[in-house]
């Protein structure tokens, strides 16, 4: 399933979760409902993280810092495209993949 509008003016988004964050979700993949505030304001990646935090409290701060920036070793892919911009809009086919990438010991 990919993003789709629901009757509650929300988009349901599939999110792939990396192993370092599965202590929150308990699953490698979850779906979250991202509210659509207005037709001209499509949901964004930032909205997905807020929805994730609502469902799994604390997860957002592990991904982005207090200045709303992605943490250095976290990558976000929206529909297969890398982005670091939390304002990236979701399309109706969007799937969000969170990747935790770290090398070294």
């Amino acid at each position, binding site marked *: 399933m990919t993003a789709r509008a629901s009757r509650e003016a929300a988009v349901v988004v599939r999110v792939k979760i*990396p192993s*370092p*964050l599965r202590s929150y979700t308990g699953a490698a993949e979850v779906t979250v409902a991202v509210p659509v505030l207005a037709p001209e304001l499509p949901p964004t990646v930032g909205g997905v993280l807020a929805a994730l935090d609502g469902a799994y*409290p*604390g997860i957002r*701060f*592990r*991904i*982005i*810092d*207090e*200045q*709303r*920036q992605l*943490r250095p*070793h*976290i990558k976000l892919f929206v529909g297969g495209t890398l982005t670091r911009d939390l304002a990236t809009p979701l399309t109706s086919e969007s799937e969000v993949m969170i990747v*935790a*990438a*770290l090398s*070294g010991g």
Partner: protein
Amino acid sequence: MTRTKVAARPAPARRIRLLVATRKGLWTLTSDVARNGWKLAGPQFLGHIVHHAVCDPRDGKTWLAAARTGHLGPTVFRSADSGRTWKEATRPPAFAEAGGRVVDHTFWLTPGHASEPGVWYAGTSPQGLFRSADAGATWEGVAGFNAHPQRKAWCGGDQDGTPDGPKMHSILIDPRDRAHMYIGMSGGGVFESVDAGADWRPLNKGVRADFFPGPPPEFGHDPHCVRFAGANPDRLYQQNHCGIYRIDRPSDTWQDIGATMPKSVGDVGFPVAVHPRDPDSLWVLPMDGTSVWPRTAPGGRPAVYRSRDGGKTWKRQDQGLPRSQAWWTVKRQAMTTDTRDPMGLYFGTTSGEIWGSRDEGRSFRCLARHLPHIFALEAWC
């Protein structure tokens, strides 16, 4: 504040538990009553970078652990049942959104005053002071420090300082007066507050800062570890980047007590440990601060140095420790004492060994090995 000493009695003969915070998780090392046999348990939070784990002496069962991973942002875990189950803070230490600063990790945890159960303080990297009033569930910045107009001048930039980031450490709460606090910062120096953190003033007179030109500045120093002198909170000891110091309040000038260390060993190190009942007794663990600063045991021959007279003289204690080729590094949070009589002294190395003495440093033996890089040891009984 009232200038009195604090009564301290030896802990009854009970087992000792060490909380072992490492670069790869949290372990516990628990003794039998004789402190002869030791049992390692763990890991918890395997793979997490645990900078500090502390048991609350006010209830004996609340543990807090400051953790992050290589990927993920910093958080605080808390246990109300001596480490059996853990919950994550719902609001970990974080700077104000508008300020542009980012907490890299929480480095130091201090339980609050005995009259304020549930209150904890945290020091972060870069330098920030945070307070929790609910046993670590939620944290608020202490604006009197974090938003102080001189904060940046005191601390320098957030990228300055020690190799793994500038940090606030050694948060000390006067046991006689909850509003009276000290903090240490690398870099920044030692600061004092008499109004529960609403305002701060530097307390660095007499301390060298060899990395600055000219006479020592008012702030910008590099204290590595600051401790109250056991039962006398009017005395503090400090292992600094540039020597070992003692201050006896209300004096505002530190005395250089490292000058009497053997010249071949020097006065560089990270931790300082104190006797819980004898304010004249302290221990340092020298590191090589020559040439390019290896920060290893001088000559590969580790030892602690004890003073029984407030730093006037020192005695080498190395019985049981390796005699050669032991190039240990011991970090600032990684040496601690228990409250038994005779007192136990413990330290952990970055190469993952824990060494302990149950006779106040007269003899040591290895209690655990093969652990990850040890950041901190805290003893509890």
